[in-house]
């Protein structure tokens, strides 16, 4: 577990955060720019000294201002991937990687070969750093951070400086990192797409404080998140399991909750593969009767658990479908007409084409029950 408590005043800005995260797992620090996300990561790395604070990673105290413990950054064994990569310009790609490898402490669990293979760095080894594209630079930076054999990988908006296509070039590498190495990560971003693709946990920050945190499925329902991502991105995120692939329709059948089945467009995935599905609230239709003769592929039986005003003139209906919650945005008129109230049985309809699945390996090590009750 990573436990962070830190307070620091810097001019008019005051950082005051307190949270803990299960390890391994990928925690996204999410918030607008200027909300203090980078300060948190720098504090964890030891590059920023908080006025008061305590940081504990898997039982070892890295910082405790009361006990006057402050492990120097060079001894914290944190891999840090900076937004601007910060590759050493006087060294080649191989030189940069070896710089980290030579100074690594502790047991080596990631070899140079593993890193080179995982991040496809083989062809870049002899290049000078200024000959690399933005995406390549970040891949080298990630590799360099991994070779320190880190106990925790910190990534401060690693893709923010890249355009859409370059971003898509690096994201799959981060996914395979998460799925194959199970190194705990703290990932700073203001891009919800990256959260969706990578995070297991979400910490929402605003003006220097944590306003909400928890597992991604629970957090996708969180009202605070809505103002950060905009109405079109609002929607439940559900971690399901692949039940089968129908090659005739090209749809993957995914089990969500205890007994809900969703048909999702995705590539052929093995039965049993964890698949994360985002159901955008604007794509979900609510019916009070069993619908018949519709083109919609997905019809989930559920129970209304909440009706909330979404501050945009419509209502957000929370529907429990066998243990998993989904959100539907409907007009207030519709709420009235269907007289939707909690405990009502309803059917939620979603077009398959509006569903995206992200394959996702759940972290393998220690279960996270103790660390985070909401996981």
């Amino acid at each position, binding site marked *: 577990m990573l436990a962070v408590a830190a307070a620091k005043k810097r001019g008019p800005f005051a950082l005051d955060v307190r949270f803990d995260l299960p390890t391994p797992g990928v925690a996204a620090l999410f918030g607008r720019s200027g909300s203090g996300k980078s300060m948190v990561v720098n504090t964890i790395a030891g590059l920023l000294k908080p006025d008061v604070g305590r940081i504990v990673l898997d039982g070892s105290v890295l910082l405790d201002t009361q006990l006057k413990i402050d492990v120097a950054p*060079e001894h914290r064994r944190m891999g840090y991937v900076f937004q601007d990569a*910060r590759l050493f310009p006087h060294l080649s790609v191989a030189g940069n990687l070896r710089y980290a490898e030579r100074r690594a402490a502790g047991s080596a669990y990631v070899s140079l070969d593993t890193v080179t293979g995982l991040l496809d760095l083989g062809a870049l080894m002899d290049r000078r750093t200024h000959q690399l594209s933005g995406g390549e630079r970040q891949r080298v930076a990630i590799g360099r951070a991994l070779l320190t054999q880190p106990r925790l990988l910190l990534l401060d908006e690693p893709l923010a400086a890249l355009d859409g296509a370059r971003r898509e070039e690096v994201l799959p590498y981060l996914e395979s990192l998460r799925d194959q190495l199970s190194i705990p990560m703290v990932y700073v971003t203001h891009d919800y797409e990256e959260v969706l693709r990578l995070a297991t946990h979400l910490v929402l920050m605003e003006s220097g404080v944590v306003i909400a945190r928890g597992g991604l499925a629970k957090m996708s329902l969180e009202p605070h998140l809505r103002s950060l991502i905009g109405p079109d991105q609002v929607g439940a995120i559900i971690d399901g399991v692949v039940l089968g692939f129908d090659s005739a329709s090209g749809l993957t059948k995914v089990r969500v909750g205890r007994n809900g089945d969703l048909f999702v467009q995705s590539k052929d995935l093995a039965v049993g593969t964890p698949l994360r599905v985002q159901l955008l609230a604007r794509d979900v239709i609510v019916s009070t009767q069993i619908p018949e003769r519709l083109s919609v592929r997905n019809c989930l039986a559920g129970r209304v658990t909440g009706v909330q005003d979404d501050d945009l003139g419509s209502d957000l209906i929370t529907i429990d479908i066998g243990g998993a919650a989904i959100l539907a945005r409907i007009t207030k008129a519709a709420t009235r007409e269907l007289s939707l109230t909690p405990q009502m049985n309803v059917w939620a309809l979603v077009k398959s084409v509006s569903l995206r699945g992200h394959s996702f390996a759940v972290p393998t090590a220690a279960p996270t029950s103790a660390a985070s009750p909401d996981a």
Partner: protein
Amino acid sequence: MMWLTADESEALRLSLSIAARSVAFNLPAAILIAWLLTRVRFVGRTLLDAVVHLPLVLPPVVVGYILLLLFGTRGFIGSWLQRAFGIELLFTSNGAALATAVMSFPLMVRAMRISLENVDRGLEDAARTLGARAADRFATITLPLMLPGITAGVITAFSAALGEFGAVITFVSNIPGQTRTLPLALYTALQSPGGEHAAARLAGLSLGLGLGGLLLSEWFSRRVRRMLGR
């Protein structure tokens, strides 16, 4: 060198050797002072800055005179050096190197400072997270990244050292084979009747050296910049 007279080649050799010694002595000191001035906040920083730059604004004769007071036979550093190590500075080439070093020191510090200020602290932080301790970081990141500035500083200081006149002649006088560098030899030639030809030759020699130094400096810094990918 065949096309130089014995006196000329001696003055040239002396100039090069004194300039080289002064630069070698100054380099580590200049890096240290530049480091203190840019990276460390301490009381008296502004004063140290001013003292370092004094030779730039003082008449060289005054610097020579102060050196005479401090390092002369009765000066308190000079007498101690003589007693403790048997080092004689007055009227020797070591003394000339010292005077030259003091005069070119501010040039060197300025160059080091600029190059140090251009080093991205973010790269040092990155090295830190990779497990590099302070001395390691300095040797493997800071120093290599300072290289363009160091080369420029060394060459500028060396060229300036070749031409140092006032402080040298005041502190260690004008002694053939010991302290008579190119500018002093040129001055001597001008003072002696019929020395115009010798003076012109020495002036030409200085000109060639200066030009060569500048070209060398340009070539070096281009190479280093290419190495750093700038």
